[in-house]
């Protein structure tokens, strides 16, 4: 008996809910406001990245990616070698010029006295 009543109540409740509709008007630009709130909440959730945290995350990213690590090491090796080569060329040229002048001054008394 009780079970039959409750079934009837459910059916009534469902009918009532199906017929129910909200008549209150949605505030103007409601959808836009919702999206704005979502965006603002997401921004607050992500902390501002500091340079150190960026470096840390980059260092961490090297570990699981051997190709990136190898490329990084190879790039630094190449840069070091290039810089060393350029500097050695410059130093050699400078010394060569100095010795050229020294030779000329050693054989020409007029250049030596100037």
């Amino acid at each position, binding site marked *: 008996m009780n079970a039959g009543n409750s079934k009837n109540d459910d059916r009534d409740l469902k009918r009532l809910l199906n017929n129910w509709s909200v008549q209150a008007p949605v505030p103007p630009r409601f959808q836009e406001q919702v999206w704005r709130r979502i965006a603002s909440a997401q921004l607050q959730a992500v902390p501002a990245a500091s340079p150190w945290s960026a470096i*840390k995350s980059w*260092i*961490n*990213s*090297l*570990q699981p990616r051997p190709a990136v*690590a190898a490329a*990084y*090491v190879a*790039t*630094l*090796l*190449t*840069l*070091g*070698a*290039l*810089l*060393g*080569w350029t*500097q*050695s*060329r410059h*130093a*050699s040229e400078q*010394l*060569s*010029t100095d*010795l*050229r*002048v*020294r*030779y*000329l001054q*050693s*054989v*020409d*008394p*007029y*250049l*030596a*006295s*100037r």
Partner: protein
Amino acid sequence: MRRGIVILLIGFVGALGAYVGTYLAGTSSSRQWLRSERPELAWLQEEFNLSDAEFKRVSELHAGYLPQCQEMCRRIAEENSKLHQLIGARSTMTPEIEGAIATTARLRGECQRNMTRHFFAVSESMPPEQGRRYLDWVLKRTLASEGMHMGHSLHQ
């Protein structure tokens, strides 16, 4: 994180090693010049591709010429100083000034003769092609540059 730092350090140490290695390799010949007794002659040997025998002969010629050159330097400085004193003490041309100018001109001529003789002797000690190149180079920067400013031709 720790492995990442190790990779980072490997990169830096490797770059430093590559820099030092290429720098030392690139300057090995010039560092060898500085280790020699007369670096300017060591430079000459490399510049004109002289064999050891040719270099020995050039070094002997150079050593023989140096006392003459130093004596010439002393005399030039002495005559120049005399000429400056005479010019500073007079307001017109005097026979003493004319004499001092003639002496410096004679000295210059003597110096040029000695230099040219030495340059020819050095060039003859080199292989013919290098000898010509040496003569062309040295004459342009010594005798031909007389009266020019030193910096214009000396460094080329």
